[in-house]
């Protein structure tokens, strides 16, 4: 399933805790994953699921939500799946305020393929495709999603499991595009090669030590924020979803949708 010490198992657990605590009926849920370690989570869940195409999870989700809006859709994705190959779908799903929950697991590397640099790889670090250090800067996907129109945006790490479960519960209940970034450890690849930390526990401690709240971050100069993980909720607001706008149009033309 996952390498020992991987954060994906913890995040899958957090999702299941959230579903259980909310008493959601998994019969009305669909989980979608693309390709990568975290994208494999849906394949292990006891619910309807889609898996195996890199980056396109939100495109499937659009077709599902427009034809059966009553289904709750959860997308499990990674930093490469979501921020690189699926980046276009991410910004447009956020812009449409598509009513889905996205859990983006950020381990800062393409781990399943053996450790290539990704869009969230820290500047300067070693990966198999940055043998002399990463020349690029990592993306801030939370800011991107907020700017694109996401209506719930939060970031936590595997070192804050209780906060993560709370955030997933809020996201699952949120009507609109909910996006949670989870900074996660990858002792096998990213920890060992990029951070020089092999021990899984020490990798989680690294996440904990580098986490700062958004309130703390607000008081810091940008140079001090490099390498830090700003955690917390960044956005929570109610705006019409794509479904709301569609229904409004259907009501105007006097047609009763087959779904209603």
């Amino acid at each position, binding site marked *: 399933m996952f390498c020992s010490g991987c954060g994906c198992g913890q995040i899958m657990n957090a999702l299941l805790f959230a579903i259980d605590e909310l008493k959601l009926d998994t019969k009305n849920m669909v989980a979608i994953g693309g390709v990568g370690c975290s994208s494999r989570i*849906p394949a292990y869940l006891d619910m309807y*699921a889609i898996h195996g195409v890199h980056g396109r999870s939100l495109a499937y989700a659009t077709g599902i939500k*427009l*034809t059966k809006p009553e*289904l709750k859709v959860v997308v499990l994705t990674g930093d490469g799946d979501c921020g690189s190959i699926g980046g276009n779908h991410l910004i447009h799903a956020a812009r449409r305020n598509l009513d889905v929950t996205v859990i983006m697991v950020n381990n800062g590397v393409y781990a399943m393929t053996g450790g290539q640099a990704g869009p969230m790889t820290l500047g300067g670090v070693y990966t198999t495709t940055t043998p002399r250090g990463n020349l690029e800067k990592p993306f801030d996907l939370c800011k991107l999603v907020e700017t694109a129109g996401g209506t719930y945006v939060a970031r936590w790490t595997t070192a804050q499991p209780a906060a993560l479960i709370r955030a997933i519960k809020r996201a699952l209940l949120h009507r609109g595009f909910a996006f949670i970034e989870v900074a996660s450890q990858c002792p096998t690849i990213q920890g060992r090669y990029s951070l020089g930390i092999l021990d899984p526990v020490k990798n989680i401690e690294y996440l904990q030590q580098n986490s700062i709240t958004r309130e703390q971050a607000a008081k810091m100069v940008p140079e001090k924020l490099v390498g830090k993980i700003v955690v917390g909720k960044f956005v929570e607001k109610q705006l019409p979803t794509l479904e709301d706008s569609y229904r409004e149009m259907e009501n105007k033309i006097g047609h009763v949708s087959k779904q209603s």
Partner: protein
Amino acid sequence: MLGNHAIVEGAIAAGCRYFAGYPITPANEISEWMAKRLPEVGGRFIQMEDELASIYSVCGASLTGTKAMTATASAGYNYMQEGIEYAVAAEVPIVIVDVMRQRGDNYPTQSDVMQARYGAAGDHEMIVLTPSSVQELFDLTFEAFNLAERFRNPVIVLSEATISLMHEGIRLPRPEELRIVNRKKPNVPPDQFMPFRAEEDLIPPMSEFGDEYKVLYTLNPHDESGRIAWTPEMYESLYSRITKKIADKADEIAMYDSEFTGDAEIVVIAYGSEARGCVEAVRMARKLGVKAGMLKLKNIWPVPEKAMKDSTLNAKKVLVPEVNTGRYFHVVRETLGCRAEVISVPKNQGRIHSPDEILAEIRRVL
């Protein structure tokens, strides 16, 4: 009616209630008419951010039990190959219209006949329909949904700029004339359902998101339960079934019109818009006493082998006119073997052959 509008009406008549697309000429009138028409029949339209998003959202819609379609033109169809690969592997019924156009421009062509069959990665069979008129755009789009639902496979309607942008009178069937096919549903309790265990026809029944079953639809190799698995034997049997479910039914799927082929010594085999002039040319040749025959293919994949062989029993020569560099000609030659001399008649100028040109070719090779 405009050809592209006939595609929309054929789809809606077949039960299509979801369309996702991305703008591209000469397929735009399909999206535009869908955007207007679908909400009137309880369906939904969305313009997606690109072709990949379009085809995957169509897959998502189909998995909820909704008949769904996308449309594009050659350059956009390139991008969709990835989604076709998924729909083949997870056996998701979808319909894709490719209004063929020249590379980098909108002039008509039949250049995608091979891409339509072989574009996607991995082992697969393809059902590809080739309408030649506005009436056939309606009829064959309708039929495309029936075939997709029956075989749980993507079905391609290979239109062309020529016919998609043409206005012709058509006869719309009355509702009671329509024979609509829907995918098979499971009828066992959820704990007994093996979502990828095929029945005798090699096709498994299909549940839908939100019902009592729970199924994983993965691109990865999977066993009959749908779970990711790999053994050499399992992989081989999975793709043997997925290809055979169509290949074995090639002659049943075959759609064609033949004329004067019984005693024909020279047979013209053509598909799509190109067949229009060929039919005329063969009739003209007959009036001149030439034993010519015509086989018009309404589907080119899977190869209608029996139709080709039955139509060329007495043929010495077979002409294959096409609006490209001569591509399906190779398929005809492979199918007929030494039975007759197969001659490619390409015309790659963005227009079909006139009946006179085909007639001249018939007389030249006699």
